[in-house]
């Protein structure tokens, strides 16, 4: 009887943890989208108002970004600063591809980020502003979707984890 109780608790705890991990993904994505939004705002300030060259702007944004997305910006700075002769689009895409797996963002978010790199730096201020406005809109939309998904799935994942655990316990033990 004692062993049965212990097993039941272990099973319920582990399924609950799995449920929490799934739920955490949804929370993290929303969190990272919000941080990306902030980082792009910083980048806009550096580019439009301070007129800093892009490598320096990237460095400054990297320093002040949240740690989950910092690497994207610092990587761009590192490659640009080494003056290897790549175009900004190549560099931006490399940085996104390298660090995408470490984030909780989905493919749709990735496409938006890659799209942003296409006219980054390679246009006058007016077009840069347009590019920023576009990504703000897209990120806001993604945030709304992510928020909806989180509301729908976070609780469900958590309770489903516990419920599946209890189910296993009832059926098998």
């Amino acid at each position, binding site marked *: 009887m004692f062993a049965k109780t212990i097993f039941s608790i272990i099973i319920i705890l582990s399924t609950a943890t799995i449920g929490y991990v799934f739920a955490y993904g949804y929370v993290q994505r929303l969190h990272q989208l919000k941080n990306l939004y902030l980082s792009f705002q910083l980048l806009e300030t550096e580019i439009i108002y301070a*007129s800093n*060259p892009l490598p320096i702007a990237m460095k400054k944004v990297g320093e002040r970004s949240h740690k989950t997305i910092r690497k994207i910006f610092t990587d761009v700075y590192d490659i640009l600063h080494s003056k290897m002769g790549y*175009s900004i689009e190549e560099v931006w895409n490399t940085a996104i591809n390298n660090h995408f797996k470490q984030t909780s963002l989905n493919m749709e978010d990735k496409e938006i980020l890659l799209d942003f790199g296409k006219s980054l*730096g*390679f246009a006058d201020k007016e077009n*840069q502003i347009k590019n920023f406005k576009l990504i703000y809109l897209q990120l806001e939309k993604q945030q709304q979707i992510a928020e909806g998904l989180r509301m729908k799935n976070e609780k469900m994942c958590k309770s489903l984890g516990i419920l599946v655990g209890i189910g296993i316990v009832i059926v098998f033990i």
Partner: protein
Amino acid sequence: MEGLKDKNFKNKDCYQNCLKKDILEALPLNLRELFIHLPSEQTKDMEEIRLRVNKPLMISCRNREYFISNKGKIVTNLSESYMITKLDIEKAYQLITDYSIYALEEEIRSGFITLKGGHRVGICGTTVLERHEIKTIKNISGLNIRISKEKLGVSNKVMQYLVEEGTFQNTLIVSPPQCGKTTLLRDIIRNLSNGMKKPNFLGFKVGVVDERSEICGMYQGIPQNDVGIKTDILNACPKAEGMMMLIRSMSPQIIATDEIGKAEDVYAMEEALNAGIKLITTVHGRNLEEIKRRKNLNDLLKQGVFDRIIILSNDPKVGTIKQIFHGKTNKIITADPLQDRRNEIVC
């Protein structure tokens, strides 16, 4: 990115050559490879690198143009030469602007960008107009990288004619284009600012209005050419306004500018003279007669503003000092004596 493995790129010997490093960094990888293989005799005298869309890659050395082949050799045959693609130009343009076209709008509008090291890149393409003014240049079709060669000491021999008893004489440098007038002006500024032992004078406070960023080669606020320790620079500033700003705020003893000619320039120069400031400037022209045909300049010459007039020519070599006049009396101070020193002045 296949090229990231090329991290040792920087360590290659030729890359350490300072002049070439700044230039190479402005070129995309495939073009860098071509230039790395060029023999140093050719690159030493290189004056320009020309990139034109779908046209052969060209360099110009000693006023002659050469093609560069796919393997990085100098060739004269058009069919062997490397053809520049639109992508090459776009990449080069990104590197030249440091990926920051938005930060260089002013420079692009005036048609050139200054690189690190003071080299200048001329831009050609389709201009975008807004209210009859050039807003920017798009669809870049041609880039001309002009390699700046700072020649320290070219003015050492002429300084004795420009400074008399410790005071500087107002000087006008007359020269056709491409004869080294800016190079000479820059070195005179450096000498005036640092002071010299022979002829003996202490350094002057020199204010430079560098409208076209040619004299000092300013890159991100730092002059890339040596213009001396007591030199204040107003970069990319219109000459007339710049001179007035310097007079008001920087108390210069000498004001230096490049290529005067407009009426407001002349007015500002008169203001400077009234404030007791000495002037050095340059003007396009072959000889004194040509200058006198221009009204604004003729007025200045009639007033006897300039004490010394230096005439430059490119015969036999760029930067040859043909004559130095006494501005007021039109007496030739030196003509022949400098001839045997020509090479010293040039090199």
